[in-house]
């Protein structure tokens, strides 16, 4: 646009000198329909997803909702400093890491294991029934799931009944009242809810494995377990790596619904994670700046982990996400 004359000199006899801008406009008018289809939603995206990122400035202010942006008081890293010296937040951080590590490991191991075992079912009808049932909890809301968990673990719930019948407990155990048990309960609840769903992708990966490999292994006398170990599991390798990278990016995302719904004053020292902390400080106590600082910390750490895991996978020759 700035140098139309040079452009027109260089281009050989064209009646109207086409500048970059004109080309751009021409393309726009040719693709009018596609632009109509996307521009409203790009605007929507900017308003609903990008404008809130501007809100991160709150973490560096003593934000008061009634004041305008220019009237806010800037305080630098005060809120971050507070977070990392606050004993409660350090506990929250420990809980977040512990729960997401448990979820990560349990989630992978159980889903891969279930996929392998489902794949070994020869009866197609039974296979389908098992799969359909295993998806069911994934579709229930966390409110319903948390309610089912708390009923199951209550004093007269089925777990306590089984323990009593087996003579393993003299009196009912109030599982949700024991803080030390919370991480385990959460891991079990997450597994119950999502294992069937998470297995879908591994089953798809298994179905891509060449059946001839199995036939050849059988002829060579490989046992069932050997075939699983040397054919099925290596066949899922690339899917496992991709999902691992994606999940490592969510290392501080241990979820908040189950922690919020199953948390109570008796287990709060173990159930409170960053998201619950943000809700409590931000929404209930109106400390917007501190809550936002905690949220930023979570996002930034997740992003760093994602990049690191991705480049690590690339170095290992697995080809990363991006």
């Amino acid at each position: 646009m700035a140098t139309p004359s040079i452009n027109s000199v260089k281009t050989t006899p064209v009646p109207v000198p086409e500048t970059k801008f004109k080309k751009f406009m021409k393309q726009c008018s040719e693709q009018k329909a596609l632009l109509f289809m996307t521009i409203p939603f790009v605007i929507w995206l900017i308003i609903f997803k990008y404008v809130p990122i501007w809100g991160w400035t709150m973490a560096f202010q003593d934000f008061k909702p009634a004041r305008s942006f220019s009237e806010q008081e800037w305080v630098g890293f005060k809120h971050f400093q507070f977070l990392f010296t606050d004993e409660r937040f350090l506990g929250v951080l420990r809980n977040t890491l512990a729960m997401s590590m448990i979820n990560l490991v349990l989630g992978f191991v159980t889903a891969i294991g279930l996929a392998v075992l489902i794949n070994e079912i020869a009866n197609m009808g039974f296979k389908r029934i098992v799969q359909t049932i295993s998806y069911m909890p994934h579709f229930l809301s966390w409110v319903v799931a948390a309610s089912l968990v708390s009923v199951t673990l209550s004093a007269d719930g089925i777990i306590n009944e089984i323990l009593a019948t087996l003579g393993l407990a003299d009196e009912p155990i109030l599982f949700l009242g024991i803080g030390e048990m919370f991480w385990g309960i959460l891991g079990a609840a997450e597994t119950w809810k999502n294992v069937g769903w998470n297995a879908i992708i591994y089953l798809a990966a298994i179905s891509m494995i060449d059946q001839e490999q199995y036939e050849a292994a059988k002829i060579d006398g490989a046992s069932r377990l050997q075939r699983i170990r040397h054919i099925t599991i290596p066949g899922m390798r690339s899917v496992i790596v991709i999902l691992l990278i994606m999940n490592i990016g969510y290392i501080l995302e241990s979820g908040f619904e189950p922690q919020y719904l199953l948390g109570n004053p008796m287990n709060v020292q173990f159930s409170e994670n960053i998201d619950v902390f943000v809700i409590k400080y931000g929404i209930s106590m109106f400390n917007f700046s501190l809550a936002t600082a905690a949220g930023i910390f979570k996002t930034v750490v997740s992003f760093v982990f994602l990049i690191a895991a991705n480049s690590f996978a690339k170095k290992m020759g697995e080809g990363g996400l991006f």
Partner: protein
Amino acid sequence: MSKEKLRSGIGIRRTREDVIFDSINYSFMVLLCIVMLYPFINQFAVSINEANDSIKGGIYLLPREFTWNNYAFVFQEASVVQSIVISVLRTVVGTAVSLFCTAMVAYAIAQPNFMFKKSVTIIFVMTMYFNGGLIPTFLLMRDLQLIGTFWVYILPGIIGVFNLIVMRSFIEGLPISIFESAKIDGAGHFTMFFRIVLPLSLPVIATVALFVAVFQWNQWFDVFLYNSSNPTLTTLQYELMKILQNSNANMSATAASAFAGSGSESNSANMVSPTSIRATMTIVASVPIIMVYPFLQKYFVKGMTLGAVK
């Protein structure tokens, strides 16, 4: 000997290992199904059992004294009926709006020569990793004056990035020849979108519809955040959440306190307990989804695979 080994190896006869493996595997699968289903069936049994009888405990898979009274009580409660209406409304409206918008953008970014194909895709995908977080989003809703309205359930979620990618992958997989022949016949992008792509994309639309509908139906957190002070806009899941929180806080709650503000108007013929109400609400809140998802299984399994591979 070698002949027998060959035969068994090819799978005509099962080896001893196969028999042991299969019996362990099949038993494990049966156990797994029991673990998956039991909590739900148990709550169903409690919901159709006489409330005072349920308090004695010992209800497992079947009711002892069958009754529909718990359902009658729950459906008499104005707040429950109101919340069901809102839940259905947001599920229907939210799903319809989201499907339309997501499919349209997916169509555009699936066009190989669209000038902003890459940049539009990138700015959408970026939001999967970066978002403002809870508080800035809350303040945005306040500034847009969406708090206390129904639209706060719909507008923030009209396009889900994961769904967008799933749809784009599907549309990109459609045979190009269809588009080319339509173009020769003079069809514009809108015609192609409505007349060709939408009808051909029914499998992926079913998948995304299920994802969005489940998400909308199961939501309680946005109610808690934005509309907890507006009792006419609460959802079923939110009402169940209140009951859950109540029973956590107060194990010996009375029937009346299970519903905040239900007071003494409850019909004395329908004696109910918090345990029964909670079980009944649990079933009411999950039955629609449980009825639908098995029929869409074929589609969402494909959709999940498609979305994750890309």
